């Protein structure tokens, strides 16, 4: 795959990051083209989550380049970058309040319709908006976190093990949601260890070197 950043996607090249004297990322590469689902597959502890956090600058790598739509992310206002590059963590944290408060967080102009649309896209009914976010199960949290990211209409959506807390049916639903997002032009990247799920739902399956791993 060529340089996706020119087409509006996200590209990471030779990303290095050390923590406590240990290399967490050692020359990682990744391309997330818009309009496609990319699965980042690597063993636990290989640095998938760290790389995703570098992509929206929750972490700054020690070396390497990350570009969004051909522009170095260090030159983009971090708040704008994080609105354009959504991130759903592996164990999402719910902020205090209702599901609606979470989905519309920092979006003062969001309407009930916007919230309902985001919830539906994540496979949740409209009535879910009034639920207390603190009382949700792991699977419900994962889907609310997805709705929360979708409510910002990101250009690129990063998901860290999005199906870890889900049963097979809900995981398949999330897979279809990600496919629909990609069809709408969003660049989707999910870090997963579930290779069969990745091969079923992703257009590209790559490792931390941006190459397809051996079958």
């Amino acid at each position, binding site marked *: 795959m060529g340089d996706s950043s020119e087409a509006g996607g996200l590209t990471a090249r030779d990303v290095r990051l050390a923590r406590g004297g240990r290399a967490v990322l050692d020359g990682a590469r990744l391309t997330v083209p818009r309009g496609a689902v990319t699965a980042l597959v690597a063993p636990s502890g290989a640095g998938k989550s760290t790389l995703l956090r570098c992509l929206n600058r929750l972490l*700054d790598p020690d070396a390497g380049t990350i570009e969004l739509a051909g522009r170095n992310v260090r030159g983009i206002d971090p708040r704008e970058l*994080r609105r354009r590059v959504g991130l759903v963590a592996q164990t999402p944290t719910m902020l205090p309040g209702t599901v609606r408060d979470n989905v519309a967080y920092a979006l003062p102009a969001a309407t009930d319709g916007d919230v309902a649309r985001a919830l539906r896209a994540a496979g949740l009914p409209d009535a879910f908006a009034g639920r207390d976010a603190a009382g949700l199960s792991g699977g419900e949290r994962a889907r609310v976190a997805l709705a929360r990211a979708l409510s910002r209409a990101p250009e690129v959506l990063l998901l860290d093990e999005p199906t870890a807390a889900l049963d097979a049916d809900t995981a398949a639903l999330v897979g279809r949601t990600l496919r629909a997002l990609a069809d709408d032009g969003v660049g989707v990247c999910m870090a997963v260890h579930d290779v069969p799920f990745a091969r079923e739902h992703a257009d590209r399956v790559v490792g931390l070197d941006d190459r397809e791993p051996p079958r």
Partner: protein
Amino acid sequence: MSTGVVQVLAALAFAAAAAGLAVRLRLGIGREIVWAAGRAVLQLAVVGAVIAAVFRFPALSAVFLAAMASAAALTSGSRLRGLPHPRRTALLAIAPPALAATGLLILVGAFQATPRAIVPTAGILLGGAMAATSLTGRRMLEALHDELDAIETRLALGDDVRGALAPVVRRAVVTGLVPAIDQTRSVGIVTLPGTFVGLVLGGASPATAARTQLVVLLALLLVELLAALLVSVAISRAVTAPGERVVVPERDDARGTPAR
């Protein structure tokens, strides 16, 4: 026998009784009580002599105030381990509000511009600022670790660092202010505060003692709030990294419970 000697002997008798009871009940703190009482005797004897010298040579007041502020910064700084400059951070949170409030009270004529008024007033305000700094700082550092996921969630949803840290700052400042608010609310009902007791024992009328206590107590509310805000701002700055990121210092496992 003079009153002074009787006072000291009575105090030592109480401490000896506490130590004796602790030994008898095998509480394992008999030696600690003796040690604490011995320290109190020595420290109060030294501070009494030093304050006597300050009263005789007023110019020494500034040195004494600096020493008090430094001691407060050392104490609070030990609760802020993990920050780049914990003692300096504590000093900048404690000294400016406490000393400014002392100066203001003297400027408006609430207290006389004498070492006899300045030293104890500044001491109480520095002590209050120190407690608020320790409590707020400790609570905030703990929350930065415990709530890092929520902070990063807010950042990922488009908040700047200030917005992402706001709930943590708010809760830490409230925690830091709880003792001051409780002390103010319960004054005269649950406890008779030190200034009031000292003045009454020293021969002042209860009305004068109550008035003086009120000034100090209400000044403490603002001083402690400012100290709590200053230390929270300093910690927020210390953990803010370029790119609207939060970098939390290593957790200090040897932390203690902030004492008041």
